[in-house]
């Protein structure tokens, strides 16, 4: 597999207003092959989004090398980020026009991806007239219809309810299987990562701590026990790195002197609760 993303010794420093600087990316190395589905798993604030911004070309102030050689980049944000004054169709046109896709191809591309996501009947709706899940779907259509070589996704389903998010994950996998885009998917949800990815990189404090292949054969089922077991193992081994983020679930306060086993159980419960299992 020839690599389409090559990152070597990527370092990013933020300078705070008080003069203190913080290194958010610490000498990252990353290679992603064409057609690969990579998940970057880590807690909020670990530098995942910063990395994506560098890959997307939004952030150009960094040290090291980051090259993306698969042509255009598609980006799906945590929120849909649709232009509220344009209809669904208008939003797609905006992206197609901005990317200078030849006008003769617009209608074919739009129809194709709208159909893939089940939004064909909603072309004339404004973003506020459709549900959050549909809006995020539309954002996915927008990212796909400019025919990107790679797709960067920044916790795209974390703002959705669990039922909708599940469906979106399954849909994403079938779209990926159909289009074979290279995908870099950032998440703090271990289960999501295990379900989606070919390869998971665990990230914390601006560095990759661990890399693992997901051995589960495709097509995968969301209820597959193998996904659950793998995610549990991921949490067990990297619980320290990925369990600590402020979530909607209240974790029991850990007493001083708590055993290692107790901590892991708490993290497990925490994650299980988040995933509505």
């Amino acid at each position: 597999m020839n690599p389409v993303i090559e990152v070597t010794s990527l370092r990013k420093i933020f300078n705070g207003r008080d003069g203190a600087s913080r290194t958010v990316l610490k000498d990252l190395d990353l290679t992603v092959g064409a057609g690969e589905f990579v998940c970057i798993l880590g807690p909020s604030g670990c530098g995942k989004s910063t990395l994506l911004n560098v890959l997307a070309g939004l952030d150009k102030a960094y040290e090291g090398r980051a090259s993306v050689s698969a042509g255009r980049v598609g980006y799906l944000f945590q929120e849909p980020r649709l232009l509220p004054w344009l209809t669904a169709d208008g939003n797609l046109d905006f992206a197609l026009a901005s990317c200078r896709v030849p006008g003769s191809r617009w209608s074919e591309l739009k129809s194709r991806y709208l159909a893939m996501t089940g939004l064909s009947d909603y072309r004339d709706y404004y973003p506020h007239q459709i549900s959050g899940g549909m809006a995020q779907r539309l954002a996915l259509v927008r990212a796909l219809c400019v025919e990107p070589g790679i797709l960067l996704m920044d916790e795209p389903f974390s703002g959705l309810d669990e039922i909708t998010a599940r469906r979106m994950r399954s849909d994403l996998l079938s779209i990926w299987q159909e289009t074979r885009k290279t995908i870099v998917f950032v998440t703090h949800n271990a289960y999501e990562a295990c379900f989606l990815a070919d390869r998971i990189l665990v990230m914390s404090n601006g560095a990759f701590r661990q890399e693992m292949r997901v051995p589960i054969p495709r097509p995968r089922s969301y209820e597959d026990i193998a996904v659950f077991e793998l995610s549990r193992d991921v949490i067990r081994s990297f619980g320290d790195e990925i369990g600590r983020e402020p979530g909607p679930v209240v974790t029991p306060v850990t007493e001083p002197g708590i055993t290692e086993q107790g901590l892991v159980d708490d993290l497990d419960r925490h994650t299980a609760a988040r995933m509505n299992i």
Partner: protein
Amino acid sequence: MLKLISLVAAVIVWGLLSLTLPPEIFPGPIETARALWGEIAGGRVGTDVAMTMLRVVAGLVLALILGVPVGVLMGLSRRAEAMLDVWVMIGLTVPSLCYAIMAFMWFGLNEGATIIAIGVTAAPSITINIWEGVKNIDTRLVAMARVFEASRAVIVRRVLLPQIYPYVMASARFGLGIIWKITVLVELIGRPNGVGFKLFYWYQLADMRLVLAWTLLFTIIMLLIELLILKPIERRLFAWRPQVAV
């Protein structure tokens, strides 16, 4: 419909209140309307209304030319904000009468000075509106547009401006309200015609019927502008907005 009821109610209240004072001091709606009709039928309103309208429109244009760029600048740059916000406050505080006097003293008793006085008085409130609007720009949408390789010009035209339009609209509307009042005042002290001049003229002759008649005329014109020009523009520009159900 509700609008109509409230207007009718206001006219009735006016009629009742006017009974408390002698008619030459506080004429009722019927007498006022009759006086107004007399002025209109006698062909005595055209020039004055036209002159006032001209000053209002020119003043508004000047106020937007001065106010919008400063507001945009202050919204975009912290430095500009720190430097200019005190001046906006001062600009807001100085009474319009002072601007009018200064303009007439420095530039003479002419239309140019009148329009300058009007525009300068109204500019700070327009600046404040635009400043707020630019600060509220959703930069996440800008990042989105950049991901899709939108050029700078496209970002400005299709992502930034649509976010500022509501504020420009609000400030134009708000500015218009202020500008009417300033224009009348400026006409009163330095112009030989216009609605303000007429008001002052009839005040000096102690003819309250005609003072109220001109006030009424003025109010009707403002309402017509609001209903026939501003509202339709707004409806077209913001058709995409969700209806707020209360």
